Each structure stands twice: as C-alpha cells, then as structure tokens.
C-alpha cells in the first residue's frame, strides 16, 4: 500500500472523530424520561397516550391548517368519539394548564423549542 504511514493514522483519526459522541458519553448518565404533571380530573387525552406522545406535533400542525384554511372547528376523537375544539389553547391547554410542568419538561429535555407560545397564550397569561 502506498503512503500507508499517512493513510492508516488518518483513518484512525477519522474513526475516532466519527465515534466521538459514543466514547465521550461512556459512563455518563442515561437519558431519563422527564416526569410530567398530568391533569387529575381527566381519564384520557383526546387520543391514546402512545399516539399523542408520538404524533401531537403532527396533529397540531394538521389542526391549524384544517381550522385556519378549511374552516373546520371540531375534531372527533377516535378513542372516545367525543368532539373537541381544534385548538391548542382551548382544548390541549385547558387540561394541561401548566406549560412549565408539562410542555416544557419534555421540550427542554430533548432540546426542541417550538414557537407556539410566541403567539398563542398559555394559561395564566403572559409575563
């Protein structure tokens, strides 16, 4: 092999760089799912917990288009068959009325910063 004295150390350095996140975090703490404060007076969310956990951002995105652009105002739950207003503040945050204890916990922990509340008003108003 030509230039093996350069190529092999180069490959080793490249490999170490590529795997940096893995070996750097060895011995670090594992990810812990944040504890959420759930509303006490409700049995269920508008859909199953698994669905909401995975898809809440999709459902909100679809709601906003359906509400603003197509004029739909009500959503029928496939879990209970009940009708809910398609609204972040009037439906979701009517039960989950503490953003810090609910929304923020997961969002902070996974480092996402949705800008819903730049316009929509969280319960208990604005600072």
């Amino acid at each position, binding site marked *: 092999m030509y230039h093996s004295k350069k190529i092999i150390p180069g490959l080793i350095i490249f490999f170490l760089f590529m795997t940096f996140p893995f070996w750097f975090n060895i011995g670090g703490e594992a990810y812990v799912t944040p504890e959420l404060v759930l509303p006490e007076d409700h049995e269920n969310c508008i859909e199953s917990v698994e669905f909401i956990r995975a898809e809440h951002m999709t459902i909100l995105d*679809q709601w*906003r288009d*359906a509400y*603003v*652009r*197509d*004029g*739909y*105002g*009500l*959503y*029928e*739950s*496939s879990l209970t068959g009940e*009708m809910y207003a*398609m609204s972040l*503040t*009037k439906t979701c945050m009517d039960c989950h009325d503490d953003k810090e204890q609910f929304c923020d916990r997961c969002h902070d922990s996974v480092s996402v910063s949705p*800008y819903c509340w*730049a*316009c*929509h*008003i969280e*319960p208990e*108003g*604005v600072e």
Partner: protein
Amino acid sequence: MKSSRRKFIKMAGFAALGWSICPSLAGARNPNSRYFVEAERLTAQQWAMTIDTRMLTPEVIDAAIDACHSLHNVPEIEPHQNIKWIWTEPFENLFYDQSHPHLADAAGKQFLTLCNHCENPPCVRVCPTKATFRRTDGIVLMDFHRCIGCRFCMAGCPFGARSFNFSDPRLHLETIDPEYPTRTMGVVEKCEFCSHLLDKGQMPACVEASDGALLFGDLNDPGSDVRRALSERYSLVRKPKLGTGPKVFYLI
C-alpha cells in the same frame, strides 16, 4: 403449472383494477374525516359590510375600534409602527377622487375604515407563501403561521389595510385576551371580518359594538341587511376604478 404471457397480462390488468378501486372502497377514509364544522356556523356566498356614515359618531367609532382591538389583541404603538385592523380616516383620504374644496361639511369628517375583503384581492395574488387567501365565503384571511413578513401584501393593498409587526406586539399590550393569539415580530396582520366569530355563529365584534351603524351580511342574499341598506341608500366604495371589488360599502 403452465402460464402464458396472455394470462399473466390479464391477471396484471385485474390486479391494477383492484388496487385502483379498493382504496376508495375500503375507506371513504380521507384524512379530514374526523374534522367537523360547528353546527351554529354562519355561512354566506360573499360576506359584505355597510358603514352608515350618518350614524358614525365619535362614540360609535371608538366603541367599534375598541371592540375589535381588544378582542384581537391589537396593540397601540407610536404612529409609524402602529397596528390597525379598523381605524379612522377623513373622507378626503378615503374618497380623494370624490373630494373637492366645497364639499359640504364632509371633507374632514372621520370615517371608519378596514380591510375591504376584495373580490379580486391583490394581497392574495402577491403573497409568495399563500399565507393570505380568500375563503369560499369571500373573506380574505391571513394564516399568521405561514406569513414570512415579506410585506408584498402591504405593497399590493391599495387601501393600506395591512400592518407589520416591527417588534413583539406583547410589549405594547396592557391587557391580553387569552381567547385570541397575539402575533409575533415579523408578521403582517389585518382585519379578518371576525371569521372566527362567524364560525361560532356570532357577528363581527365591530358590528355588534356599533349600535347599528355597521351592518354585515351576505351580498348575494337579496334579503340580507346589507342588500336592503344598499338598495335604500346611495353608497360608495373605495377606489372602485382599481377593480379589486371592495366589499365594504359606505352609505352616504
């Protein structure tokens, strides 16, 4: 088992037919099937407003502006960056081509003005993200989520009905109505004929607050308040020559 080319093509044909029919049989399952409109929703082919200029007293004007701006969290900011959904202009500004030096008492009189919800809206045509669109009931609506703040619509609108948020509007609001979102910096906004109230079966806020000076109804319905007022009184619209088809009529 022996298979001929002819038989293979036949089966492929049937399979294609089956695949094309089956999804529609299995579902009627479009993604919207869980969405419903409110039962009490008010509908029209073309919403329109009349403004009775004889009934526009300062009290009526203030009540209408206040009802709108407090409901929609519209801030009051220093003149050049102000946000306005409904505001006042003197006759000579609104109808400058109808104005002359000897116009009896009316030239300086303050009239209410707002988005005209044009039939052929230039703001919709120029919007690069389709954030502004025309609903089937004729309301020209903003989807604030989609606005990128390019302000083409402000250049396009011949009536100055649109305002741009140069800063966070919450800094300028003393009280916030939690029922309606505020906007954020870099978004354009305007009157939306209270489409969110119409969808819940209520009349626009300014109409409710105006003590009869503003009327609202379906322009295509001969029995509506708006059509009756238009048939009884002489009326003007702003800048008819531009051909945008304004739907706010001023009863003179």
